[in-house]
């Protein structure tokens, strides 16, 4: 980049009314002022501005840290697959019970009826719940974005078909279709379940993206791109979708927390994750009878679900505020 110097060919008089247009040049705050603003000389991209606002959102930042800790602990403690973790006990083995299995230093989350270490079990369930949630989030985002973008950009018969398909998916009760398909798909393992859930939960995102694309495709820069001869694929991927990324990311985040709850409900009803795999919903379902006598068997997975869903929602809120700060910075 050495050839792009900060040289200014016209000197200060390239815009002779520097003083008059100085406000315009800063163009940041409502009302405007020529007072030098901090960071004025630094070049912020839209992404950097969003990140800056996100990291100032305290609840979102805290949630991000908490979720990060949960993810790290869930995956390192009992290990993934054949890789062992740092937690000494195995979720498959039954240990001697201490008392009635209430939490102790030895077994911080207590033990279940058979003497299994409940901490290891909950971590195993958390792993599966997280994998399903993120896989569902990613799949539904990809499908929803694709369908929404195609429908919004091309309009016409393609839009009619895609949106009617979306309507059909919306009117089918989510829990019923997920239960029916989920039962079959569970035999392919948890990713099969994630795939099925992802393929039935993309509808709201598709509608949001379509709406966003509908308004973006009328913007002048899209017209300018068309006038220059840009192909539709390049317009969608380079000019339209990057500008809809706020909507997409926020919606994807919220769909992750919805997926956690959906998976929990399904597993609780017995249609979700099947033994020998386990998830937080399965754990609650398995030990629901023990709620009165051994409440920790309910509270730990319940608390986990609550914390993860809450964290993801707060992150979504933070992202939404960061992308849509309700101040029109491009106004001038």
């Amino acid at each position, binding site marked *: 980049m050495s050839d792009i110097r900060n*040289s200014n060919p016209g000197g200060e008089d390239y815009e002779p009314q520097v003083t008059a247009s100085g406000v315009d040049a800063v163009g940041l705050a409502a009302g405007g002022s020529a007072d030098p603003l901090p960071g004025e000389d630094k070049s912020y991209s839209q992404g950097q501005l969003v990140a800056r606002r996100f990291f100032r959102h305290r609840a979102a930042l805290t949630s991000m840290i908490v979720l990060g800790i949960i993810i790290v602990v869930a995956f390192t403690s009992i290990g993934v697959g054949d890789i062992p973790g740092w937690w000494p006990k195995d979720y498959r083995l039954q240990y001697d019970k201490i008392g009635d299995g209430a939490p102790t230093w030895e077994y911080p989350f207590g033990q279940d009826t058979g003497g299994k270490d409940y901490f290891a079990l909950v971590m195993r369930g958390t792993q599966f719940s997280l994998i399903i949630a993120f896989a569902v989030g990613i799949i539904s985002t990809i499908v929803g974005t694709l369908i929404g973008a195609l429908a919004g950009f091309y309009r016409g018969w393609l839009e009619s078909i895609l949106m009617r398909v979306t309507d059909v998916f919306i009117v089918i009760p989510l829990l019923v279709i997920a239960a029916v398909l989920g039962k079959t798909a569970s035999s392919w393992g948890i990713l099969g379940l994630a795939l099925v859930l992802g393929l039935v939960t993309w509808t709201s995102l598709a509608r949001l993206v379509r709406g966003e694309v509908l308004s973006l495709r009328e913007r002048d820069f899209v017209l300018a791109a068309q006038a220059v*001869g840009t192909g539709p694929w390049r317009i969608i991927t380079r000019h339209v979708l990057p500008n809809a990324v706020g909507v997409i990311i926020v919606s994807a985040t919220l769909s992750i927390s919805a997926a956690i709850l959906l998976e929990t409900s399904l597993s609780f009803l017995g249609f979700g994750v099947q033994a020998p795999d386990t998830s937080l919903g399965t754990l609650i379902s398995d030990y629901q009878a023990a709620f009165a006598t051994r409440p920790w068997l309910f509270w730990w997975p319940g608390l986990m679900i609550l914390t993860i869903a809450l964290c993801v929602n707060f992150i979504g809120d933070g992202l939404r505020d960061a992308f849509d700060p309700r101040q029109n910075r491009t106004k001038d």
Partner: protein
Amino acid sequence: MTTLDISASGPATATGDAVLAFEDLTVTFKTEFGDVHAVKGIDLEVRPGEVVALVGESGSGKSVTSMTALGLLPRNARVGGTIRVGDKEVGALDGRGLRNMRGNDVAMVFQEPMTALNPVLTIGDQLTEGLQLHGIAYGKQATARAAELLAMVGIPEPERRLKQYPHELSGGQRQRVVIAMAIACDPKVIIADEPTTALDVTVQADILDLLRSLKDKLNTGILLITHNMGVVADMADRVAVMLKGDLVETGTADQVLNHPRHDYTKRLLAAVPHLGSGPGQFGDVAPVEAAAEDLPALDLNNLVIEYHRLGKPTFRAVDDVSLSVAQGEIVGLVGESGSGKSTIAKCALGLIPAASGSVSILGTGFGKLRGKELKALRKRIGVVFQDPASSLNPRLPIGDVIAEPLVVHKEGDERSRRRRVLELLDAVELPRSVYNRYPHELSGGQRQRVSIARALTLDPELLVADEPTSALDVSVQANVLKMFTSLQERYKFACLFVSHDLAVIDLLAHRVVVLQNGRIVEQGPREEVLHHPREEYTQRLIAAAPVPEPLEQRRRREARHALLNKLGEDIAELHVDDDYERPTPRQDEGGNSSGLGGLLGGGS
């Protein structure tokens, strides 16, 4: 900074105590980038029956100043100093007091009448709402009063209009309704924030006539906020010039517009294009060199463009238009909103299809091309749009924006593209450092320069410019126009220049085409069309365009009224009957809760 007050020697234009006074007004906004001082201690007075124009470019703080008088500022604003409306001090009022003051003592006329009116309520509902809230009239009386108000502002068939919705009225009529709402409670002062900016020139002239007769007949003070020097010359008794939150100069209209003292005012006035002075103000336009046998850069033949609407008859936006742009020629396309000028521009770009007729670029027709050939043809056309805020992709840095056409047409490699971008940045007089900047970091004028650079990337033979300077401040517009003429001289592109501003067209067009309702009214060389118009419509357009010189503008105004009289049309004015009773609003101090008190009051 001290205000240069040059009004001392002038005669006082109005008497009586001020109806609106700002004393040492400061406004500070708290933003994420620290405090922004929008208004830095200004003093200003508006007296009864006087129009004070507050002039400045975007971001100078003029709208913020006016909003303080209504107590309507966002939460992050801090207001210092005193604001007096009549005998009330705005800062000392609570919520109830403020609501009582708004409408009764001070009213507002907004820029965009479509958004200032609620689209789901009828005109009648919106007019009577204010009357009822302030206890002036209720029920049938309120409806009758609303009809009277509509008649006053010159809306025909007021009773029928009361039952209509805003979308059923034209832009000018909507603005009249907004004015009727503003005078409903007979305020002492009206704040008009760019009241004519969103309107066509002929409608603007009518609305200004109406406002002028309003202050004469009702003795209302008007604080007129505008960036248009022509409007100032037409309306203002006194002028205050704002720059970055400071008042730099105040004085009578004649003093400020004809004998400005402050450098900024002088620069601002020099930047206003003068209709009738021809090219040369911002650089000369090169003569057309194309020979008669050369193919025209753009040739429209009997062009018809139609919009198909669901459940409604097809709308013919452009009807049988034939025009051509020779190589190296700038053709100005003028017309009011809805005349189809932007539609023609889009059709010339191949963005919308023609229903019949033909569009050809250097002899190649748009109609039958597909795929590669179409892409090749588009390479020869550049485009600049009006709105600098939306014409650049906010996610791409400027370097990528300008290089995009090269990438699309797979021309050159990384190095040569960058060389071309830097060359273009130099040509549009932007510093090379903007290469890595993002559009939101640039001012409107700078963004428009980027737009022009992008349009020139592929060295097009034809440039279509759709109102390229309409969204810019005058001083910025002057610089962009200056740059535009020099670029045209250098690159010799032909240009279809769409604008509603006759003065801008007068500066740079070789030929002018005047459109009305999708049809060509008149076309010919610039001097002929703009200086000796043959058609009545063109005469009207030219007569309605205000010039920034009070005496000249007065002469033009009278000439326009004479023209209207000759054509047998009314001049817009406020119709006040002799037995017009001024409403006495209920002074809501908590005591009078019957709500009918206001009706018992007498006339003025």
